[in-house]
């Protein structure tokens, strides 16, 4: 007979740089000045893209777009920790991840303009096309991590999803597989507090999303998702652990979606201005700027130059994107199978897309 505690878990919260730009000396020790500057510049680039995408949508030049404003530190910080052989499984709200990985900017615009060719991932870049059904990409990351293990590669699969995605069966089944088979996977949940209109507390009764990892037999950590340095440090540690056969990690980036869910949404219907304003005061660039100033890495000119560089890149990308020839109707059929079926062959002619 017994009545005793047989298991406990503790959830770590990580913040390398606080809102005033003070750095934890131990956490920041492994981060180079160059990496901090790259975080800053990547956030600027992401934000520039984001603003232009929102404008282009309003002008009818692209379709529905999912803004990443507010979440840039989670995306940029984690993506900077990736190595070349790692594979990334994104959701539809990962502009910062794509751009930090060096994804062609014009293709990003092309995708949001409704053209699949925007997600024809260039060779050498190991990121999957955006996954639209929420959370469904989680098992794919587990599968790729499994393949890496089977093939004996030193690499990890990194999956991005949100607090909404953590309620799906895909989250449970994907993380469970990763735990059971000790797979080299890193699950990055950007808890941006809102799944369209449903607040985080309505997704799960658990205090944190991070703690859910423990039920799958591995660690979960909550990170200040507006702290690019903290996210970078946490992701780097999780990747190292994965590649050293230490198994998966769930990283909950505690952040906030400052914009509407997408350009088709109106967030004022379900959340207060005050709440948004409060989070605006915590947006990721503010503390990074303060930190870099203290480190002697930031000047007004430096930031201005970074913005100008980003604008030039984005402007050129939009030009490229808009000059790109439109897709051919026959593409609808051509990429479905490795080879055309006889039926598809007939349909190409029937629809007048081929002679």
């Amino acid at each position, binding site marked *: 007979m017994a009545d005793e505690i047989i298991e406990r878990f503790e959830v770590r919260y990580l913040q390398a740089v606080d809102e005033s730009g003070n750095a934890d000396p131990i956490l920041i020790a492994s981060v180079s000045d160059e990496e901090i500057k790259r975080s800053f510049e990547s956030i600027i680039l992401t934000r520039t893209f984001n603003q232009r995408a929102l404008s282009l949508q309003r002008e009818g030049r692209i379709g529905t777009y999912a803004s990443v404003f507010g979440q840039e530190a989670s995306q940029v910080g984690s993506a900077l920790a990736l190595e070349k052989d790692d594979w990334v499984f994104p959701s539809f709200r990962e502009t910062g991840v794509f751009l930090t990985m060096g994804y062609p900017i014009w293709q990003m615009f092309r995708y949001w303009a409704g053209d699949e060719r925007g*997600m024809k991932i260039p060779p050498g870049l190991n990121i999957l096309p955006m996954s639209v059904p929420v959370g469904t990409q989680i098992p794919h990351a587990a599968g790729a991590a499994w393949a890496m293990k089977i093939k004996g590669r030193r690499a990890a699969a990194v999956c991005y999803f949100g607090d909404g995605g953590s309620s799906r069966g895909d989250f449970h*089944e994907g993380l469970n597989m990763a735990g059971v088979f000790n797979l080299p996977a890193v699950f990055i949940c950007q808890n941006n507090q809102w799944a369209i209109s449903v607040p985080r507390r309505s997704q799960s009764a658990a205090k944190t999303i991070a703690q859910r990892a423990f039920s799958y037999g591995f660690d979960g950590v909550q990170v200040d998702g507006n702290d690019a340095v903290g996210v970078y440090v946490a992701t780097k540690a999780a990747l190292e652990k994965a590649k050293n056969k230490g198994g998966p990690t769930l990283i909950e980036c505690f952040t906030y979606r400052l914009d509407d869910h997408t350009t088709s949404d109106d967030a004022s219907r379900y959340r207060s201005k005050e709440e948004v304003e409060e989070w605006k005061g915590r947006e990721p660039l503010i503390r990074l700027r303060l930190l870099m100033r203290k480190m002697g890495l930031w000047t007004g000119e430096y930031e201005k130059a970074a913005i100008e560089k980003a604008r030039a890149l984005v402007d050129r990308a939009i030009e490229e994107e808009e000059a790109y020839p439109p897709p051919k109707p026959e593409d609808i059929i051509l990429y479905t199978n490795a080879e055309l079926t006889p039926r598809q062959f007939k349909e190409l002619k029937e629809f007048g897309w081929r002679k």
Partner: protein
Amino acid sequence: MAKINMVAAINQALAQEMERDGDVVVMGEDVGKDGGVFRVTEGLLDRFGPERVMDTPLSELALVGCGVGMAAYGLKPVVEIQFMAFAYEAIEQIYSHATRLRARSRGRFTCPLVVRTPYGIGIKGPELHSESSEALFCHMPGIKVVVPSTPYNAKGLLISAIRDAGPVVFLEPARLYRSIKSEVPEGPFTVPLGRAEVFQEGKSITVIAWGTMLHRAVEASEGFDCEIIDLMTLKPFDEETVLNSVKKTGRAVIVHEATRYCGLGAELAAFLAEEAIMHLKGPVKRVASPDAVVPMAALEDYYVPTAGRIRKAFEEAMKY
């Protein structure tokens, strides 16, 4: 040549493809130590080890979802779903991802994944162990759907499915696993996907069937001059073989286990209406199951087409 049953034939196909290609892996519930609930994967764990023959948690969504990720990364996973109805949980992974990865990435990523599952009546199992929902999968662009009818074609079709560049749903008629034996070459060979076979030649009625119903149609055809087509690949089906036969006989009867409403027979009949109407002497007949859920064992023989119902359709077809 050895006479073997379908379980042994599928087992050979898996083992030989795993031997030939180190990227082929097998995963599913009870597929390792237990050799699968139908023993289809028997011996594979001992031969290829737990890295390539994986007993997984009870998790159909992740079986297929992980399969998609593995395939994208360069493996050729063969996922076993224990019974067809259990694949319903994985339908989103098949429909939203496996079938679309190539199109979505404009060819950068592909999904050479095989989902094997036993299907159909005949094993006296509990509820939801006897489904024939092949039309669900046939409706999906970007996938192939295959049903073997003999040990020979089971082996050849599965080898083709594993070597295929895209996702294949491979439906194994549970009733046929051990009920028939045929001569099967010991070494690897392929039966091409997308091609039907004239299983029995005839002049008066074209009968289109697959899996278990193929054999029932053969049984029912005594006394009729039926040309029986074993469709084998349901998607994309072999339009040419079907059309050539109907042009010759002028009559068509389609037999399947699934419900008639939106069953694959509807597509076949519509195809014949569009392409062969001038050759038809009378209406296309479908012998299928009623618009009702698959009953449990006590009633299942009333549900699926019987030889009597099939014969009746032949008689009606011959009135024209």
